């Protein structure tokens, strides 16, 4: 197959941008801001170009670029995307410029370093979604940690160090286990292939042949790492701290993109590599997912800090995604993929909105607010739409994902138990409770605090950030086919890999 360099270019745009940025003078903040924005917009435009040239009638990897990287060990630089990766790539490159603009007012110190880390982070995120070699994947997976660690640790809130270290250790613990698993997987595959390789596509053909016990260990090792990232109950406690301490841009990227790497990992690695173990553990993981849906919602409901509320709501939303993946029906997996995008948009926007009001009052305590509808009507309007999207109101994006996930999990023969769906479905009640309750306390009622009278409504720049998100929120709600079609064939392929794994040939 001929190499296609587009994905490599996409990877190099933010990388080159980050390097070039180092030659800027620190005091030249305006130039740094516009340069960072320009780089990330170019990356988005290239991602769009890739989207328009993507063949959604195929579930195979496209735009593949492959060459030997570490020759002796058969480790490849191997990149390529299917429909799922493409959607996440679009999400990543769409969100990054928005977060950069949003931090123009929020980040006042070390702007150059901040922009550098954001671009650096984008390299890692793009890399994770396009890697088709386990070793390469691992490198990007780890690379991402560093800028995120600094973004939380340098530009974060009061307890940023605690949060950053907690984030780092949690994720690091998981990824070390994944590294062991990668090595073991490749070594074990040598028995079948006759040579050592970390190439994912090759491993797809042999890993499913492993015995159930080996599959089980490998499945669990990968699953642990991804479950921490998602985060799956009960591995979620790093999330509220990281979110609350991170600056707005960090939270948006964290919720919008980073969490999706866990669910993406399940889809890309766990299911196709270890189909037997995946089916074996589907119910177990789904139980955790369903607990997360209810637990996340209930704990979100009683939070007093807006950002923490949104953070816990992520636990609930990602629970839906995981349930959809492990229900393993076409409907539920399609729902899970679209829900990853939805969560990126809705929760990303919620964090942006919380950040915007925080910049005005320097508090996120719900009790500080009350009756701001009159003072900041435009803000209240945006918060309403985004909340409704997160609640899963039909006609907006959230509904499409949740509906497909629940519908698919109900008919799932892998789970084969209605209670998963029944309990998960009650999550939609609590979702309405925690968001509308917050909305009621913050926006409605009489103005409770005279200081609130001084806050100003959204600026043009802030509206400019939110409008594109709202457009997609409505678009996915009304005409999700644009996005569902992209991933349809890819999810079909993954489900085939699970239901009809390659058979062992006699050697």
């Amino acid at each position, binding site marked *: 197959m001929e190499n296609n360099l587009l994905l490599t270019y996409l990877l190099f745009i933010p990388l080159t941008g980050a390097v070039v940025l180092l030659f800027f003078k620190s005091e030249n903040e305006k130039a740094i801001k516009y340069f960072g924005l320009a780089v990330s917009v170019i990356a988005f435009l290239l991602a769009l170009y890739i989207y328009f040239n993507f063949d959604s009638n195929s579930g195979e990897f496209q735009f593949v670029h492959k060459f030997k990287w570490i020759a002796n060990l058969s480790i490849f630089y191997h990149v390529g995307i299917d429909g799922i990766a493409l959607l996440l790539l679009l999400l990543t490159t769409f969100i990054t410029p928005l977060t950069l603009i949003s931090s123009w007012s929020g980040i006042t110190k070390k702007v150059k370093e901040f922009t550098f880390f954001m671009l650096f982070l984008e390299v890692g995120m793009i890399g994770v979604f396009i890697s088709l070699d386990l070793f390469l994947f691992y490198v990007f997976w780890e690379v991402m940690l560093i800028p995120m660690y600094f973004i939380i640790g340098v530009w974060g809130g009061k307890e940023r160090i605690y949060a950053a270290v*907690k984030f780092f*250790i*949690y994720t690091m613990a998981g990824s070390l286990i994944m590294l062991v698993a990668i090595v073991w997987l490749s*070594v074990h595959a040598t*028995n079948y292939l006759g040579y050592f390789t970390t190439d994912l596509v090759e491993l797809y053909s042999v890993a499913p042949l492993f015995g159930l016990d080996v599959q089980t260990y490998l499945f669990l090792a990968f699953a642990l790492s991804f479950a921490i990232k998602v985060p799956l109950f*009960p591995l979620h*406690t*790093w999330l509220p701290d990281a979110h609350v301490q991170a600056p707005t841009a960090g939270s948006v990227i964290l919720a919008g993109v980073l969490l999706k790497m866990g669910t993406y990992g399940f889809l890309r690695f766990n299911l196709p590599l270890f189909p037997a173990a995946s089916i074996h553990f589907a119910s177990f993981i789904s139980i955790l997912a369903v607990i997360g849906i209810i*637990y996340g919602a*209930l*704990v979100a*409901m*009683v*939070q007093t800090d807006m950002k923490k509320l949104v953070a816990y709501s992520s636990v609930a939303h990602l629970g839906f995604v995981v349930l959809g993946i492990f229900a393993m*029906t*076409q*409907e539920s997996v*399609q*729902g899970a993929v679209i829900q990853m995008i939805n969560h990126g948009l809705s929760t990303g926007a919620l964090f942006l909105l919380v950040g915007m009001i925080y910049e005005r009052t320097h508090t996120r305590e719900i009790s500080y607010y009350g*009756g701001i*509808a*009159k003072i900041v*009507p435009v803000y209240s309007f945006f918060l309403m739409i985004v909340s*409704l999207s997160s609640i899963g*109101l*039909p*006609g907006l994006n959230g*509904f*499409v994902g949740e*509906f*497909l996930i*629940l*519908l*698919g999990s*109900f*008919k799932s023969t892998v789970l084969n138990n209605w209670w998963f*769906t*029944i309990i998960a*479905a*009650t999550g*939609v*009640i609590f979702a*309405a*409770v925690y968001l*509308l*309750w917050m909305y*009621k306390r913050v*926006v*409605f*009622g*009489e*103005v409770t605090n005279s200081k609130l009278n001084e806050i100003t409504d959204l600026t043009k720049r802030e509206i400019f950030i939110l409008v594109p998100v709202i457009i997609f929120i409505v678009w996915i709600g*009304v*005409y*999700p*086919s644009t996005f*569902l079609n992209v991933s*349809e064939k890819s999810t079909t392929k993954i489900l085939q890999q699970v239901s009809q794994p390659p058979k062992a040939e006699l050697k």
Partner: protein
Amino acid sequence: MIDLIYLAVLLPLIGFLVNGIFGSRIKNEKVIGLIGSGAIGLAFLVVAGAFLQTLSLPVDQRTNYVELFTWIKAGGLHINAAYQVDQLSLVMGLIVTGVGFIIHVYSIGYMHGDKSVWRFFAYLNLFIFAMMNLILADNFVLMFLGWEGVGLCSYLLIGFWYDKPFEKSTTSAAGMKAFVVNRIGDVGFLLGMFLIYLTFNSLNFTDVFARASSFDVPGSVFTLITLFLFIGATGKSAQIPLFVWLPDAMAGPTPVSALIHAATMVTAGVYMIARTSLLYAMAPTTMMIVAVIGVFTAFFAATIGLVQNDIKKVLAYSTISQLGYMFLAMGVGAFSAGIFHLMTHAFFKALLFLGAGSVIHSMHAQQDIRYFGGLKKYMPVTYGTFLVAAFAISGIPPFSGFFSKDEILWYSYTNVGFFFWLLGAITAVLTAFYIFRIHFLTFNGTPRFDEKRTHPHESPKVMTIPLIILAVLSAVGGFIGIPEIFSGENGNVFSTWLAPVFKAAELKLSYFGSYSHFEELLFMSISVVGAIAGILTARYIYLSKPEIAESTARKYGRVYKILLNKYYIDEVYESTVVKPIINGSKSFLWKMFDVKLIDGFVNGLAGSVSNASKYLRKLQTGVVQLYALVMIVGILLALFWVILSL
């Protein structure tokens, strides 16, 4: 016009967008009202055109579909944005856009001077948009879009005056309660859909109904499907046990109560059962449950309505009660009678609310009937039209409510049994009593307000003309559904029109027994006499001997208190469901489990690692030879492991 039916959905949406986006910049209230009402008026014309066209078609061609685009497609699921134009959806469409238009016009007067009229009309238009989707949808999912959409508008409009206190809390608390309670029902609706999809592999009405007849599906599945859907209906249509939100919904402006919480949205559950009547017909157990819930809700809500002092509260409980009748009709298989009552109720209950609104408007937001009295002379039009509506709801012939309610009562006797008729008839007496109680206390007798300070006045024409139109409809609307004993075979125009929609369901139901005309007339007479007795009792107590009311209330103090406090249902829910969930989440799940247990474990682990590292640090001796030794041992071990595992 049938092909253009999507305009009836699109026009309200355009109205919403125009007023929603530009409304705050349109300073002229009249323009805003004109845009809002105009969108609905035009939508009504579209529906009316489609109705006339359908009327001209032969009976077997009266179901038509208009497809717009693919909405959600994944795996085996294929949901279109597509509308079904048939006898049932046209009747509903005419009610929603017709009554909706009248109420929009009324709102121009009622909301005059409000600082955010534009927002009001935008929400109202959005509501009609959602409601039209609900009734025109050709599949469950699009119906659900409308179903949740009307819930959203209800939420937004209940809390329209978001900074206004309401009872113990605020209007936005009432709005949130409505949304959340509705969502509980919606989960039932969702689960019903999932089971339908699992069973029939489709969510389109046509496919599902065709397969329901042809697939070999055990009866229990139908029972479960219909029960799930019915949970949804109890939420939206405020039936036991999910009725608690509707009384609070009165926090919204009165036209909202008339349109959403009386005439249209709350009837969505009834419509949904009518639409899926075939599934219900195959689940006799569910039918019985629906009938029981319906008749008990009717009775139960009427008892609360007897003693409330807030005029809108009485009307709210009255609505719950009347919806109970409609569910009774559905449960006893009298589908077209239920829809007939839905229609007449839309006329007279909208009129009652708008009349109450007219009173409240002129009494400076006073809603307590204890401070009304003698308003007849100040507001003759409101008085006259309110009286017509009161007669209609009491079931006095020949007003519209008589025909529809009588049909339901009669079928509940013939199809299920005497007890259902009896409870329904008693409710009818209570209804006549409570409605005339508020009528007399409001319009007759001597004024109980300070006539020097309050100067009641008749409402402007923009409000009274809608009242008059609705009064005419409430008075004569019943004539399209005259029972066959008076009108001859197929003389009931309304049920003949709807018959094709319910044919499949009615074929599955078999009710036996034959009843004479004498029996039917007897039962009819009893309920009419009962209603008249109710009216006369109210007249005697509240006009002639007001002291009776007080002494009775004192004598049966405990009963009175229970009724006045609505059987304490809200308090019971609060202490058994709401509080435990919130407290449990806060003190146990969050502060105990999350912070202490999980995080404690993680931090403890981290702590012990750093402790251990204090000792491990000592291994770093700096002696290179030692490092080399450790390395060699390590490599050897690794080699062994690799060899052994090969």
